[in-house]
């Protein structure tokens, strides 16, 4: 049984120290600062199980469900240290999405069945939201779930489903009605077993020629009505509501921070710090990162004080994703004639995955709501600009 302790009673510094020292002892060295942004379950299984054993796998779940029960402030410390120590990302849709949704809206039966299987790693979840014609405009989704006795019959297609090829359960948004005046109505959250007949997964290689997202096809898939979360037709509000303080992490500086360290390594090795032109460009990037930290802190302070985030937090995600891009673009400038190689660059202090980061940096400005969508949200939600 996992350790039970009121982590929130500790000071941030104490909690940080405890977390850090345990990670340093328990995180297998070969998993630190993995090149791959999105390892599959098998690659990080050992780390997953150690966290689960310790009770540290799910930071925000209440302790009664096997989580750490961290408040938002402590959760920020957890995420910060995770990044700083180079912990690999684990397939976390079960921990971060399905779990919180069930804890908030699930039945006891759903919780009893699903939550332990997330912690054990038996169920690996993915998120079935986007469709080919419902990306930025998610509410236009068409995958249909039609009632048939005690079941729903699901037909349709999802896309950009991260790590679907190594998941066995999918949290599905499906259309159960299209009568209402608003397209947001008539959407239902379903828990779907991907090993059921009729589910097909097709991986989509990305710009890095790796697979971290997939298409998922549903051909008359039978899903028990017991697997509906919350009310039928009310899934949109559910899916939105579960995104709470976690929205801050979309703007956490960890990716640009990692990238700038690699930029510094490359620049040092290639003598770029002797070039004042580079130093001036680097200074701009360095200060942008520094100030992103200050801006992140501005929102973290709200959470620490027990407040809620407003729509303004999107500003972090925009700035962070664009900064990440600019840092990786500068890496290619420093790489000079070498900025053509697919493989990592060699330096005296180790490898620099310049191209890997450059290509990866194209993604965060698109995913999780493109930066254009975010700017629209800010225009309306913060500045109150008219339609």
């Amino acid at each position, binding site marked *: 049984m996992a350790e039970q302790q009121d982590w929130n009673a500790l000071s941030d510094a104490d909690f940080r120290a405890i977390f850090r020292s345990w990670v340093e002892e328990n995180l297998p060295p070969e998993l630190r600062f993995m090149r791959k942004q999105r390892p599959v379950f098998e690659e990080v299984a050992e780390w997953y199980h150690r966290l689960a054993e310790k009770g540290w796998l799910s930071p925000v779940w209440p302790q009664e469900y096997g989580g750490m029960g961290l408040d938002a402030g402590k959760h920020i410390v957890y995420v910060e240290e995770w990044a700083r120590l180079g912990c690999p990302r684990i397939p976390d849709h079960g921990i971060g999405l399905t779990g919180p949704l069930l804890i908030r809206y699930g039945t006891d039966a759903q919780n009893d069945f699903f939550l332990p299987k997330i912690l054990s790693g038996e169920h690996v979840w993915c998120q079935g939201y986007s469709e080919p014609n419902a990306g930025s405009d998610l509410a236009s989704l068409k995958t249909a779930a039609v009632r048939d006795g005690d079941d729903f019959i699901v037909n349709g297609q999802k896309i950009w489903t991260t790590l679907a090829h190594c998941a066995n359960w999918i949290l599905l948004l499906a259309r159960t009605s299209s009568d209402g005046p608003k397209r947001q109505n008539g959407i239902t959250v379903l828990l779907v077993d991907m090993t059921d007949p009729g589910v097909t997964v097709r991986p989509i290689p990305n710009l890095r020629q790796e697979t971290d997202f997939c298409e998922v096809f549903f051909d008359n898939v039978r899903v028990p009505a017991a697997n509906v979360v919350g009310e039928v037709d009310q899934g949109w509000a559910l899916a939105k509501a579960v995104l709470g303080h976690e929205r801050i992490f979309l703007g956490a500086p960890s990716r640009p921070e990692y990238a700038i360290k690699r930029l510094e390594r490359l620049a040092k090795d290639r003598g770029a710090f002797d070039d004042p032109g580079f130093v001036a460009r680097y200074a701009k990037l360095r200060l942008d990162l520094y100030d992103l*930290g200050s801006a992140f802190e501005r929102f973290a302070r709200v959470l620490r004080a027990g407040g809620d985030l407003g729509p303004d937090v999107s500003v972090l995600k925009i700035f962070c994703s664009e900064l990440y891009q600019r840092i990786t673009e500068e890496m290619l400038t420093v790489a000079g004639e070498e900025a053509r190689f697919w493989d990592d660059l060699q330096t005296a202090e180790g490898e620099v995955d310049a191209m890997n980061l450059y290509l990866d940096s194209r993604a965060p400005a698109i995913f999780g709501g493109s930066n254009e969508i975010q700017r629209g949200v800010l*225009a309306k939600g913060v500045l109150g*600009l008219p339609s």
Partner: protein
Amino acid sequence: MTGLILDDEDGGLALLHDSVAGFAARHPGPAAFRKRRAAGADLDRDTWAKMAEAGWLGLMLPEELGGAGLGLPEQAVLSEALGRALVTEPLAQLSVFAGMLLAGANAGTERARLAEGLIAGSVIAAPAWQGRKGAPAPVEARVSGDGITLSGRVEFVSAAQSATDFLVLARSGGEDILLSVPADAAGVTVDAHPTLDGTMLAAVSFDGTRVAADRQLAGGNSVGTALDRAIAVTRLMLAAEMAGIATRAIEETAAYTIERVQFGKRIASFQVVQHRLVDMWADAEFANAAVVHAVETCAEGQGLPADLAVLAAKARAGDAAVSITRRAIHLHGAMGFTDDCDIGLFMKRAVALNATLGQPEELRLQFVARERVAA
């Protein structure tokens, strides 16, 4: 959320902030700007007296000097609010900078006189210490008998025409000294030129100007320490003032574009205008965040982290204020290009403050150089 968000348990900061808004309602900043500009003056003594009455001068001077003994958060909130209201009297130089110099000076009658007058608004003690490129450039001092004789020239002196005293950095026998010089002393010449923000900056020359020895306020290493501290704190307050300008400029521009109709639509409903406003707002938010971070880091004590935070805040707020007000002018269309429209005054003030005590490019290079030496 917007503006400076600092811990304010007793509500004192909010009170201070509101007092500026009240002041600005009675004495609108843009009108005062235009009036002073038309007069070719470098300080409006009436406004200054009212600012003294409000208790805003020498805010951070210790209580033993008659000051309010308040800290960086209070001064930052005041400066931000003044920026937002476009109250453009040179508080950063005459209250913050001069105040920090006096706070770092030796105890004595002259210091007490200056501090008292600074707080009351009766003494205009103008710091005089910069060379042509902005770096400290002491004038030459010769001590003889019970007097000190000064020769040399300093640049970028605020309120030199209105000054009662100059706080002069001088060098005597290999040592820096700080002394006050009566503005009407023999051999003092003021060469003032108009600035973009409707005031004047002067070169001040001392040609054998003689002052009594008890006019010396500090000597030795403490001078450099006080000067460095004055520069850092003033930079921070300029950053706060620019954050205020930035925040106000985005508010004004959002309001204008919501009001203005073209092609049968409010121009704020055009997506391109919306996204530009969002980017401007984001820049202002980052400026505010950088200022708050610097205030808090400085409150934790002096040293490298505090120095870096101040450099970052001044660079960020300067870039934000200048570029936001520029975009604001553009979004005001032809109206923005007129002198009648206040938005241009905000832009001019932002450019002037941004050029004061180091522009962003220079501050960023200092940041990186200091951080990398320490690494």
